[in-house]
């Protein structure tokens, strides 16, 4: 019964793995709910400020903020928002694939690239394939704080202000639903015009109290809230992706156990039959 014991051991080990994946699935499910609440809470603010800044890009403002002026594209910056941990299906891989294909397009036009990275997966990925990393931040945990992200953002804003980069993009996962997460590239700087074409005429705001302070504050807020939203959304995506990945791993484990169990039973039956026939043959010989 040597083979039988081997199969039994194997079944046990798959069962142990299954316990782990099952636990991870449940943890991810409960974290996902919290992450989703957080994401939904800040979404309206982010959408609205994005809208306002989109309007601002149409306005012929008396104070020309560099964020509103498009320069010739010589060098671009990307902020890549990934997760810290793996075991979440193809989430990070799909994101990096999109980022790399976009970067390649830029490199073909002789446009240089600078990177800022959020999350350990992005850090290790770009360490492997190379790239000029200006800043990174990891270990944001499940409840990221805006203060932790400001450093990365500041590095990129400074790079933009000193003409080192002429565009700033953010590469992020956007949460569609539990089953689907879509990697996206959004242009942060210079501010892209909103979709409302009716604003395409010569107008300017009335400012209270002054244009510089207001535009500065609004644009700063805009960048902060978009980056924060990207990070919060990424956590929701990560948890959802992990939950789905662990669910399928648990299901696969069940299937493997069933197959092994069948093999074990067959083996057991065969050895019993063999023993019986040996006994019968022995008895007949006497």
């Amino acid at each position, binding site marked *: 019964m040597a083979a039988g014991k081997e199969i039994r051991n194997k079944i046990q080990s798959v069962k142990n793995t299954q316990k782990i994946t099952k636990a991870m699935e449940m943890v991810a499910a409960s974290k996902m709910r919290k992450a989703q609440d957080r994401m939904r809470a800040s979404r309206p603010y982010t959408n609205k400020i994005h809208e306002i800044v989109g309007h601002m890009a149409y306005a012929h403002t008396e104070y020309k903020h560099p964020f509103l002026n498009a320069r010739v594209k010589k060098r671009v910056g990307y902020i890549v928002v990934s997760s810290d941990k793996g075991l979440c299906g193809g989430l990070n891989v799909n994101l990096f694939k999109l980022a790399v294909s976009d970067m390649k397009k830029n490199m073909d036009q002789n446009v240089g690239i600078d990177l800022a990275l959020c999350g350990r997966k992005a850090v290790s990925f770009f360490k492997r394939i190379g790239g000029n990393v200006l800043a990174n931040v990891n270990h944001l945990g499940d409840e990221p704080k805006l203060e932790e992200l400001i450093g990365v953002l500041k590095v990129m804003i400074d790079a933009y202000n000193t003409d080192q980069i002429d565009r700033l993009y953010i590469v992020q996962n956007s949460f569609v639903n539990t089953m689907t997460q879509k990697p996206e590239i959004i242009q942060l700087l210079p501010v892209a015009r909103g979709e409302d074409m009716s604003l395409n005429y010569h107008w300017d705001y009335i400012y*209270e109290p002054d244009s510089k302070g207001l535009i500065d504050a609004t644009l700063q807020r805009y960048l902060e809230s978009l980056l924060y939203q990207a990070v919060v959304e990424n956590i929701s995506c990560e948890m959802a992706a992990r939950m789905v990945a662990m669910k399928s791993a648990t299901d696969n484990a069940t299937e493997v156990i069933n197959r092994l169990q069948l093999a074990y039973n067959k083996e057991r039956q065969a050895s019993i039959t063999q023993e019986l026939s040996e006994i019968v043959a022995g008895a007949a010989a006497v």
Partner: protein
Amino acid sequence: MASNPTLQVDIVSAEKLLYSGVAEMVVAPAVNGQIGILPRHAQLITHLLPGEVRVTVPDEEQPISIYVSGGILEVQPNHVTVLSDTAVRAKDLDEAAALEARKKAEEAISNKHSDIDLAQAQSMLAESIAQLNMIRKRKSK
């Protein structure tokens, strides 16, 4: 009434969407004084002080009253957006908490050695006073 022009109003805080709908008029505490916005107002953008945003809704007698802790207000001809750090519906304001906050802020201002710095304490004081004013006004109605 129904033929009156209206504007779309969205009031959001960092935590949630507080109000989204049509209105006949919006009154908000801008830095240079209260401003009232009617439909077809010229584009305007301003900082807000802590205080009350009143939204006059068609076919409703009482305007909707929302407390904001400051933020940004943007006006497009038929669209008003209020971006606030914190915003609370007037009826959800907590008088005890506001009184407590005012006491703390006043203490911090008079006591130089507290861990809260002066600017922060002053903004806390302004916020709590604005909240208390709103609560008082609501009660006296």
